[in-house]
């Protein structure tokens, strides 16, 4: 049944997200084709294409948040909740499915953002020939300076993992805020209270994360001598130049789990659909 929930959540959110990615793919293909053929970026169409691509890349995160939150509100606590809550599935499956679909769209937004950056770099290389390639290599060299490729990979993976947990946490904050706003005391003005709870819970989570990053230092330090990563706990970890923090992701996981169960309990025990 979980697969069926996923399928229908993808259909529900995919109607809008499909249009966004359809436009993104069309503009990206036009740009790549155009630059590959002409080796130039001189037409108004191409310039506009770049602007549209960049705008979509940034706006995509906002659109994703809006689609995911609206889908959750409508399909769980709106009139469609009459259908969702009478399906022979567990409440936690409904929540998991929505969360999974949300994460998928955020990752897609992140990949679209990376694709835009990649297209920009590639276009630069194509247009400027050897000179452009040199510029790209110089930029990569600046990032890479002093670090081995292996460590760069570790860094990249770490940031991707952190992005993933940030997305999970943000999704759970949103779902929790929407759920609290749909309990009886706040139900009448749920839009207002959703915004309010989103802000309040968001600020609380940020404060918790500030404390965690300031006082809890667990992670891996990179040694320039041995070119190896070593596990480090305590203040030493903080001063290391190349430190990969794992306290923050762990804190994000714990916060997400707490929000998931709080949302689940409210959903199961305290929600009266209007």
């Amino acid at each position, binding site marked *: 049944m979980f697969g069926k929930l996923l399928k229908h959540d993808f259909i529900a959110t995919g109607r809008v997200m499909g249009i966004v990615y359809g436009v993104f793919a069309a503009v990206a293909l036009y740009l790549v084709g155009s630059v590959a053929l002409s080796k130039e970026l001189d037409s108004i169409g191409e310039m506009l294409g770049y602007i549209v691509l960049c705008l979509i890349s940034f706006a995509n995160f906002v659109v994703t948040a809006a689609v995911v939150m609206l889908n959750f509100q409508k399909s769980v606590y709106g009139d469609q909740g009459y259908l969702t809550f009478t399906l022979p599935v567990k409440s936690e499956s409904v929540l998991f499915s929505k969360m999974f679909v949300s994460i998928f769209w955020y990752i897609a937004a992140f990949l679209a953002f990376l694709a835009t950056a990649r297209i920009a770099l590639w276009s630069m290389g194509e247009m400027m020939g050897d000179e452009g390639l040199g510029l790209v290599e110089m930029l990569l060299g600046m990032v890479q300076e002093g670090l081995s490729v292996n460590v760069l990979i570790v860094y990249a993976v770490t940031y991707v993992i952190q992005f993933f947990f940030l997305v999970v946490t943000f999704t759970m904050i949103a779902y929790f805020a929407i759920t609290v706003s749909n309990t*009886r005391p706040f139900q009448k003005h749920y839009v207002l209270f959703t915004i309010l709870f989103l802000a309040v819970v968001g600020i609380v989570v940020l404060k918790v994360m500030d404390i965690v990053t300031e006082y809890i230092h667990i992670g891996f330090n990179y040694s320039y001598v041995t070119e190896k990563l070593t596990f480090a706990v305590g203040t030493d970890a903080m001063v290391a130049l190349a430190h990969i923090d794992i306290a923050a992701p762990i804190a994000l996981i714990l916060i997400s789990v707490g929000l998931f169960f709080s949302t689940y309990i409210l959903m199961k025990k305290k929600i009266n659909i209007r």
Partner: protein
Amino acid sequence: MAGKPLLEIKNLRKSYGSHEVLKGITFDIPKGQIVGLLGPNGCGKSSMIKSIVGLINDYEGEILINGQAPGVESKKVVAYLPEKNYLPPWMTPKSAINYMADFYKNFDQEKALNMAQTFELNMKQKLKTMSKGQQEKLHLILVMCRKADLYVLDEPLGGVDVVARDFILETILKNHAENSTILLSTHLIYDIERILDRVIMIKGGTLAVNTQVEKIRENNSTVENLFREVFSNVW
């Protein structure tokens, strides 16, 4: 001797804040009956129905459907028709039928497609562009094409003309599964009196009447007259 009841409700209580809408209701319904759940607006009918179908969980007392509390198992055998449109506006009859077929093993997809054709529904028309009548036909198909043990129909005759009411009742009677139970909430008693086996009347959150329609008739009365008698002091 009747077998185990299909639906058992024991001392059901539900409050919204300090306002108690269900004040300890107890009754049970055997299999194979058509039961009218009657009462004026605000008497607690909808809260009771929502508790039975699993939309409300914070009630006191006990609800058992086939011996099980409302949950995943009970939802497999309960077909619910809410008072309002519960489908997303972008859905079409085709996608709605596919949706139900995906989640309910007892949903007869072929029958649903045939009924949609008989009711002259455009399979590709989005719900938001359908008339209220077309939407109600679709809702009815989605519920009555399930081979359920219990059909819970909340005000299925509300807001439609007399011809549509006849059509809806006929569809329900023709299509409900054999030996299933129908719990039908309405305030249009005259229209449904002829099809009822039993009536349950809720007054101010308490059980006012729970009797066989046959017994009412034996006393040379009608469900409508009994309703007037019970609720005469409400207005």
